[in-house]
Structure formats: C-alpha cells, structure tokens
C-alpha cells in the first residue's frame, strides 16, 4: 500500500512538473526522471531475487532475496510510465492545480479493477473519463453480461482446466505418454487464455459499473493467422503499451530491416522479462521475437495464397507454436521444460483418459466461443444475443466452478 501511494505521488509530482515547466530541458529531465523512478521501483521489487541469486552468498544477497513482490507492481509501474510520457507529449492531460492533479493520478494508478492484473491503462485514454458519474448512465446490463462471461471463462473453464493441467508439473508428466502431454499442452493454452481473458473481462465489467470504459484486452487471439496478428489480439494492453512506449521510440520499422528485427527482438525479450524474474520468461520473449522476425523475413520473400485452407493451416501453425511457447510459462525451471519436450518424443507411460475427456469438454466451450465470433463476423448472427446462453453460463458458474485459485497473471 505504501509503495503504491509513494509511486502514485512520485508520478503525480513528476507529471505535474512536466506539464507546468516551459523549459524543454527541464521537461525532458523530469520525464526521464519519472520513467527511471518507475523502472527502478519495478527492478528493485520484482527483479531483486534474480540479482540476489546471481551474487555470491552474503548479507546483501540475502537482503535482495527477501524483498517481497508487491501485488500489481508490473501493472502500476507501467501505468506510471505511460502517465509521464503522455503528459510530456500532451500537457492537457494534467490538471491546473497540484491537488486536483494528484487526486487524478492516485485514482489512475490505484484504480482497483485494473490494479492487480491489468488491463494496463494509458493516461491519455483514462484521464478524459475522470469526472462525476451518474447511475442513469451506467450500462448495467452490459456490465452484467461482461461479468458473467468473465466469471464463466475464469471459474468454469480456467479453474477446471487448472485441475487437469496440474499434471504438467515436474515430475508428474514423466509417467504419461506423448498423447497425454499434447493434451495437457493444449489444455494449458486454453486455460491461460480463459484465465487471463476472464480476469480482464471481470476487471472491465467492474469498471463499467463505476462508469469507466477499460480497453479490450483480448480479441480471440487463437484465430490469428500470423504472429504479428497474435500480438494484436493477445494481452492487447501490454502489446500496445510496448509498441507505443518502446517499439516506436526505438525506431519501429522506420529504420530499415535489420534495425526493425533488432527492435522486435528487444521489445519481445523485454516483454518476456516483464512477466517474471526467471530465465524461462526471457527465453519465451526471445522465442516470440524470433518468430516475429522470421515471419517478417518470410513475408518479404514470398506471399502465401489467400485460400481458406491455407489460412486454416496458418491459424493451426500459429496456435501450435504459441502453445509450445506456453510450456515456458508453465514450467519456470528451464530444465523441466526440456524434460517435458524430451518426454513428448518418448511414448512410454499411461494415456490419461479422464484428463483428455475433461480437457476436451472445457476446450470445446472455448472452441464454440471462437466459432460464434467467426459466425458473427460472417453472418451477423450472434449466439450471445440469446438470453438462454447467458442463463446457462450463470448456472454453470454456480454449479460447475473449479477449485478457486489466483489468476495466472496475478504473479506478474
């Protein structure tokens, strides 16, 4: 709490100074200072155990290892950076008086629906919404539906799948055959989507009840036919933040091919690192960086025909490649991830019949959700226009929820 308030106040002071300073050098100084303070807070609390583990044993290393990880730190520090940069680009975000500005900044940084696990808010989107709200303007029905969908994805799909993909942990997976491991991997892909998309929808639904529109965070990512499309549909608030505040300032794709590839790699590697202080996350980020680079190179050499079955093949390929990458999320210890990959090619062990059936049942709900989206795009018909579907989802939330557990992205 103390850290959150301190971070909010530092951002308030810094952004106020930026907006009320006419000198370019001083403005720039405050902007750089604000960004550095946010990054320092993030590094100190999130990555100190990683640094501590690298140092030789001693008091300082022990101190670093004992620093706790505050909830939501990855999200509110990024919001702080967004505020500082947005104010630097556009003075009109800041209020005229320090008191009003500080109130708005604390509200923005500590906005509880998005505090713990996003979506990452951007100052230029959120600040214009800060004003008095009236009950008559609250979209209760829309909020109710968003909450039902969010809780369905989280409680019914993700929490039940979690109890199946439990067997992906080391050393349990060593006892099962290749088909079981493939089922578990696909189950985990569906789980992580349902968990995070579900949480984001809950955050969006709660914010709606207070009259605030939060940005959409997921847009059916598993129908992406390319990795760049995937990143425009998955964790949209993070990918757009990285694009706006890191990729474009680095030069984006405006400085030639080699620089573009380097920028992509840096952004994705840092994006991976943002997820956690472990080697596996950096490797995951680099993995996606390499996929994006290879995709860009291939698209410059040849163009695939726009036939339907080619598109379906691309969607399947992207899904499998992304699912493979989730292995590094699930098994933080890189040696365990290697052991899992080796076991994929060693068919000794039992087939998990019940697990496969359960993964199939819950994944099929997500498949129907995606097919409905495609149907809606093609013909305008939407199953979710039917009240019976919402009632069934609500019924399943009450009667078929899995064991409750923290959101996967809670740990970031």
């Amino acid at each position: 709490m103390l850290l959150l308030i301190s971070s909010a106040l530092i951002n308030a002071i810094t952004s106020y100074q930026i907006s009320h300073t006419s000198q370019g050098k001083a403005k720039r100084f405050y902007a750089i200072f604000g960004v550095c303070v946010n990054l320092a807070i993030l590094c100190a609390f999130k990555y100190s155990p990683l640094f501590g583990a690298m140092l030789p044993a001693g008091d300082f290393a022990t101190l670093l290892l004992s620093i706790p990880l505050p909830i939501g730190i990855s999200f509110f520090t990024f919001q702080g950076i967004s505020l500082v940069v947005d104010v630097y680009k556009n003075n009109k975000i800041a209020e005229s008086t320090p008191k009003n500005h500080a109130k708005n900044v604390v509200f923005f940084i500590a906005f509880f629906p998005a505090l713990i696990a996003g979506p990452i808010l951007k100052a230029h989107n959120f600040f214009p919404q800060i004003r008095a709200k009236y009950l008559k303007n609250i979209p209760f029905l829309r909020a109710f539906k968003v909450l039902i969908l969010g809780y369905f994805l989280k409680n019914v799909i993700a929490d039940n799948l979690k109890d199946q993909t439990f067997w992906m942990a080391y050393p349990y997976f060593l006892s099962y055959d290749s088909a079981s491991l493939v089922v578990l991997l696909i189950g985990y892909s569906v789980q992580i989507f349902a968990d995070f998309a579900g949480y984001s929808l809950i955050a969006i639904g709660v914010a709606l009840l207070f009259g605030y529109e939060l940005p959409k965070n997921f847009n059916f990512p598993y129908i992406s036919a390319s990795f760049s499309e995937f990143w425009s549909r998955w964790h949209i608030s993070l990918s757009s933040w990285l694009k706006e505040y890191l990729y474009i300032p680095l030069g984006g794709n405006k400085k030639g091919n080699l620089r573009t590839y380097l920028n992509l790699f840096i952004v994705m590697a840092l994006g991976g690192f943002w997820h956690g202080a472990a080697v596996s996350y950096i490797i995951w980020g680099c993995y996606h960086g390499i996929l994006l680079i290879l995709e860009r190179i291939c698209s410059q050499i040849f163009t695939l025909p726009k036939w339907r079955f080619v598109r379906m093949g691309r969607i399947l390929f992207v899904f499998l490649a992304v699912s493979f990458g989730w292995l590094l999320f699930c098994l933080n210890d890189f040696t365990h991830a290697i052991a899992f990959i080796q076991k994929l090619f060693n068919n000794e062990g039992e087939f998990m019949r019940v697990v496969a059936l359960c993964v199939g049942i819950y994944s099929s709900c997500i498949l129907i959700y995606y097919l409905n989206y495609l149907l809606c795009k093609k013909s305008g018909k939407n199953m979710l226009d039917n009240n019976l579907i919402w009632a069934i989802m609500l019924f399943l939330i009450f009667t078929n929820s899995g064991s409750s557990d923290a959101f996967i992205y809670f740990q970031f």
Partner: protein
Amino acid sequence: MRLSIFSSNFLKILAIFFAIFLAYNIFLWSCKPQITATQNQWQQNIVFAQDFIYETKITKIAESSAYNAIIVGSSMSARIDSAKLAKSHIYNLAFGGGSALSGLEIIKQTNKLPKAIFVESNIAFLRPKDANMLKQLFGVDSAMKKYIPALQVKYQPINVFLSFVKGRAGKSKDEKLAKQRNEKLYKDSLERMIEGYNANIDSAKYEADLAELRVLLAYFEKQGVEIIFFEMPIDEKLLNTKQVLAVHKVLKDFAYPTLPPPNHSIYQTTDGIHLLEKSADEFSDEFIKKTRDFL
C-alpha cells in the same frame, strides 16, 4: 428514473437461470444420481469428505453409530479396502494428496467423534492440512450445500455426465488398483522417492505441523477418543531415509499407542509407497486383525 438493470433482458436472464437451477435441484433430489466419476483428485477428495460430512450413519460417540473408528491419512492408507473396513465398523477418511491433519480437522469440525481414530504415521506431520479444501468444506455456504445439492462438487453437471458415460463404458484403468507394475516406471519413481525422502526436512515448518498435530490429538483425547498410530508398508529401500527415520523418532516421543509395524518386505508397491492391489488386500486383512485389540 428507470435503470437498465431492471431491463426486461436482465430479468429474463435471471428468470431462466432460476428455472434451470430449480429444475436441476429437483432432478438431483428426486433421481439421486449415482456419482461414480469426478474430474480430478481434488474433486474426488472434496466429494469423499462431503460424503463423510453429510453421511447420517456416522454420528457422535454417545449416539449409535454405524462406525466405531475412523482412519485418517494420505493416498497410502486410502488403499486399505473400505468395504472390508466397513464390515469392521471402520470408516476410511484417508484420501489421495490428503494428510492426517486435514482428516482430523474434518472430524473435529463435524463433531462426529468415533471411539478411536487410527492415524497414518508415514507423513502425519510432514504434510500440512489443506486449508483450501477445509475452506471449501466448512465455508459460510457449507450448510446451504447440504440442502441445495446443485451446489455440491459431487453434483457438478460435468460429474453427472462423466458418471453417465462411465456407467456405459465401465470402470477405467485408472481406477482399478494396479495389479502389476511397470518395472521401469517403478524404478524411476522409486529413485525419485528415495531422493525426495532423503531431502532435508524444513524443520521450522515440520515443528509447526507437529505442534498442530499435538493440539488436535489432545483435543480428541479430551473428548474421550482413543488415538492409535499405524504405519503403512513402503518399499524397504525407503526405510533408512531421513524422512522415515524422522517419523520413527517422533513416534517414539509420542505417548500414543501404535499398531505393530508391518513387515515391509512382504508387500509390493507401484512406486515405492502405494500398494499394488494384492498387497493392499493382504494389508487390509492384517490391519483389521491388528485393530481388534482396540475396538
């Protein structure tokens, strides 16, 4: 001012939801479907525990009860044949991934105090109680779940469906206790077990769990319940590991009676600690014979 929350769509959704919910409960009350399948071990444990909690044949010591004694422990003692135990009026409350602490806490909270509690000593104070599970079993809504079966984990629609499918397909291979073991998997598993059993025990945590166990046992003793420890047979190669030796040392310091230890060499396990079907059957007979002195 008419708020959209009272719009006809919102009310329709709620009305349809209540209709489905009521219909499902009526189905469960009237048909009482036999639930023979759950989705995972956690659910199986919850169902198992809820069966004990809502089972009316088990009552307090002072009243007549179908069971005189209860076993608490982990997946090891869950292998003891429940049907054979029931004939001897012993209820097996041990479950996979479970611990003696969780079992004791369940008995305490339900106040279904038997004449005796048999505590599996193998990991009695080396595995903490499952706080999540206990919260699920004894949360604010637990009384409601007794009377609204649709809220019980057992009657989740997917479990009803799986039980229906299983009824058609027969018992799955997973459920039958292993008759034979896969020697390669057994060796690999035993190696990992030996490594795990020889790992350093977190003494602060171990002391905390041990203290909690002592408090619970003292509570039961005060209520007139006899506490008896028993050891499940394990692979002989594990007998001299740190964990097993630590447990034996603590048991010596405890003042509670213990059943005579089993002859570990005559039993076979699938992975070092879980008995094969034949061995489980033989041990069940031995266990029942040994408990006669106490019941």
